[in-house]
């Protein structure tokens, strides 16, 4: 089984809830989901509270996507990262994408981002 997604519309973007394991088998699917929402013109807040496994495959997804989002003046923010995600990010000094503690903080981050408009 791959990842499961559900989404909630925001004023100018989407809160994308991701459930499952982000690994070599599912990383491409996650990247496709993020880029799909980017193609819709959305900022994306990726809710990682239900990600039970996460490794460098997921890090590479966000490192690739961060530049693509930036080029299109859209924001990509990770929110409520599960313990395994937080641990991987801390060890490798992850900084490609903003990480927010909760939805309110993520929305504040979006408001502070230049959308090129």
């Amino acid at each position, binding site marked *: 089984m791959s990842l499961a997604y559900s989404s909630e519309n925001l004023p100018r973007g989407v809160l994308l809830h991701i459930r499952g*394991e982000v*690994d*070599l*088998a599912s990383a491409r699917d996650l990247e496709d989901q993020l880029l799909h929402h980017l193609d819709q013109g959305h900022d994306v807040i990726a809710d990682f509270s239900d990600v039970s*496994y*996460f*490794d*460098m*495959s997921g*890090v590479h997804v966000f*490192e690739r996507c961060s530049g693509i989002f930036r080029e299109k003046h859209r924001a990509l923010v990770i929110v409520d990262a599960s*313990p*395994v995600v937080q*641990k*991987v990010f801390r*060890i*490798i*000094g992850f900084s490609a994408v903003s990480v927010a503690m909760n939805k309110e903080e993520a929305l504040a981050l979006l408001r502070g981002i230049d959308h090129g408009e």
Partner: protein
Amino acid sequence: MASERTPWEMTIQFQTDPETFRVVRRSITSALRTAGLSESRTLDVEVAVGEILSNAYVHAYGQKPGLLAIDLKFDGDQFVLLIHDHGKPLTAIPEIPQTLPRPTGTGGRGLYLVGQLMDAAEILHPGPTGLGTAVRIVKRLR
């Protein structure tokens, strides 16, 4: 005082396939939990194993089919895992990095992560069969 926990060992052999890796990770973590390893430390091992399998898939076998094996031993106090392949030797990274490699470098961040998650980690050139590469990782029960 000697541990009263019964030592055991197991070996898993499988083909390089990302979906299979998930099955293997779960098999390993199930064994670790049953032996009494905490949830947090079990997850450390799971991520480390996942990274090593990804490395073998990408670097040793070039994302093509190949044979992998994991020897897992528990001596009552610690778990020792030897993950080995028969593929292209891992020459670009001779040992587990002790400092975080740059993202733009020749890689190694995954193995750095392995080293940080485990109590001990080393790369063996070649692996125990005289071919490929092996990574030996250790996690203490406590």
